[in-house]
């Protein structure tokens, strides 16, 4: 009998232990990032030489591991440990880690893997291990063209992030933004696109005309933005794969503040005429234009809820800039911002529960979030000037831009991209080759 109880006890213990694998809580500010070891992906000599020929990288396994390390570090949730302390060789670790060794350097999680060159393709396999429990948490392999090697690093990070936090990652993504150069009074602006980590930066326009506010289509590689081509400020649609572009709609005046609907089939934007800005949508398939707002005030910066049923927008109908929510047909308009100050640039979170915004109060600019009924306002960051938040596809991180105050001579102006976690922690500058503004985060490129 005693033995039976012991056995039952044992049986209960085992499954509960396998369920208590490491987890990372991303709902709170993480001041204690998880120590993780990224063992360089191992590679055989033949594959190494082949990749060196194609990619001009000495050890592609090493390079991919570095991408994973940087991603994990910037997330603020993980602390990638120094490789010099690793005791076990990468190839052996990938077969079966000696958990005592990794435990010794205080790693709680371990990533191992292997890259090989097979039929002109890059094949990668990787494993995520729970060091304390001594268990494998993920084992995955995939094959792709060698030039996709950076994306391999991002995809692995996404898988690790998802396994450890329980939510999708945001690493295999791109940012479209406006690259800026030149003096403040004669700024030259170009559309630019880069990977989420700043790699593969590419300019999409030449800077001959002013361009502003590019936004990704959540379902494809299309972008909508404002261009002053021929001094006619209009909303454009750009296919970043083919480079083809077109004016959106036929409006007798300025169209601006464009954004896609969540299904990617409509563009919502403002049209200004006779001193009055109203919100319109245009269906990209049948070109039908609908007027959504009807008010003699400024109505702009519209953003759909992820289910497409509501729109939040910016209006000064109360006298000053405030945030409003309405049904997607324009009915049921309700003001939701009631705090002190002015509110602008509302953007609905991809998770649906929050609206991010810019707030101006007593000469300071804030990026904040509130619930969709306006309750629970939380300011994440304060600065001299910052605005235009854009959500990471998992709704955990906001990217925005910040401008510096100039000195007495009007010198020292700069504009940079910054990101911050929804928790208000992990604020960091996003490196760009030039000054930058108006960032927009893409969806995950792979799922």
């Amino acid at each position, binding site marked *: 009998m005693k033995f039976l109880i012991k056995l039952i006890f044992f049986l209960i213990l085992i499954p509960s232990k396998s369920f208590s694998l490491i987890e990372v809580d991303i709902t709170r500010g993480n001041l204690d990032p998880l120590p993780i070891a990224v063992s360089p992906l191992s590679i055989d000599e033949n594959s190494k030489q082949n990749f060196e020929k194609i990619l001009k990288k000495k050890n592609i396994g090493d390079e991919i591991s570095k991408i994973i390390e940087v991603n994990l570090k910037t997330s603020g949730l993980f602390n990638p440990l120094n490789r010099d302390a690793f005791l076990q060789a990468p190839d052996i670790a990938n077969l079966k880690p000696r958990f005592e060794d990794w435990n010794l350097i205080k790693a709680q999680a371990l990533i191992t893997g292997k890259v090989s060159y097979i039929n002109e393709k890059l094949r990668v396999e990787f494993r995520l291990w729970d060091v304390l429990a001594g268990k494998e948490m993920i084992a995955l392999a995939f094959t792709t063209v060698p030039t996709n090697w950076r994306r391999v690093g991002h995809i692995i990070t996404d898988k690790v992030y998802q396994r450890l936090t329980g939510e999708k990652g945001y690493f295999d993504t791109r940012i479209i933004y406006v690259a800026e150069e030149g*003096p*403040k*009074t*004669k*700024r030259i602006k170009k559309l630019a696109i880069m990977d989420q980590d700043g790699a593969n930066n590419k300019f999409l326009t030449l800077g001959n005309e*002013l361009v*502003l*506010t590019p936004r990704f289509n959540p379902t494809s590689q299309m972008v909508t933005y*404002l261009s002053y081509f021929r*001094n006619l*400020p209009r909303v454009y649609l750009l296919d970043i794969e083919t480079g083809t572009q077109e004016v959106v709609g036929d409006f007798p*005046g*300025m169209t*601006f*503040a464009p954004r896609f609907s969540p299904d990617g089939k409509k563009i919502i934007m*403002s049209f*200004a005429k*006779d*001193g*009055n*800005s109203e919100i319109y949508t245009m269906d990209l398939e049948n070109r039908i234009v609908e007027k959504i707002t009807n008010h*003699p*005030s*400024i109505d*702009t*910066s519209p953003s759909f809820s992820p289910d497409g049923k509501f729109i939040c927008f*910016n209006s*000064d109908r109360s*006298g*000053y*800039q405030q945030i409003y929510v309405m049904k997607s047909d324009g009915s049921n308009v309700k003001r939701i911002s009631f705090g002190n100050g002015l509110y*602008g*640039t509302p953007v609905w979170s991809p998770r649906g529960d929050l609206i991010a915004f*810019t707030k*101006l109060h007593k*000469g300071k600019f804030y990026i904040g979030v509130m619930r969709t009924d306006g309750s629970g306002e939380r300011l994440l960051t304060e600065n*001299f*000037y910052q*605005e*235009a938040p854009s959500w990471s596809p998992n709704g955990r991180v906001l990217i925005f831009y910040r*401008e510096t*105050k*100039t000195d*007495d001579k*009007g*010198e020292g*102006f700069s504009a940079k991209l910054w990101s911050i976690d929804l928790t208000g922690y992990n604020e960091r500058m996003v490196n760009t080759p030039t000054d930058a503004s*108006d960032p927009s985060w893409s969806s995950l490129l792979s799922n």
Partner: protein
Amino acid sequence: MKKLRIRNIDQGAIMKLNKILKNTLLIVFACFALSACATSKKTTGQMQGDVYTGTDTVEYLASGVPDRVFFATNESVLTTASRETLRKQAAYLRKNSKITIVLEGHADERGTREYNLALGERRANAAKDYLMTYGISSDRISVLSYGKERPVDSGSNPLAWSKNRRSVTVKAN
């Protein structure tokens, strides 16, 4: 229209309060540093409320016809001085009936980009409406908003911002 007026009063009251506060501060500062006071006075000398009244950045369409009007923060209401400038422009345009113009509306850097685009458009249209009431046909006027994209003064101070809140009349032909 009624709404605009109400807003105007609010804004006026706020500006007055700001001014009172500023003046009190000035007195306090004056006790400590006379030189600081002098520079502040120079600043207020070029603004009424927070509308720019100086001529540093102004260009002329013709002799005695200034090319631009200035606005208070977040406002598109024309001041008395702005109306006078626009009447001069209207007289000039009536005499030179072949000239067409672009009204370029601008905002300062202390606002969100998209709202400022709308605000610039609203300011340029305030100027357009006034020119039309003085006999200039809308066919001769086009409107272009630059929002906060083209400041004339790169400073980050109230005087620079007041110069940047403007509608500029530009000859198009």
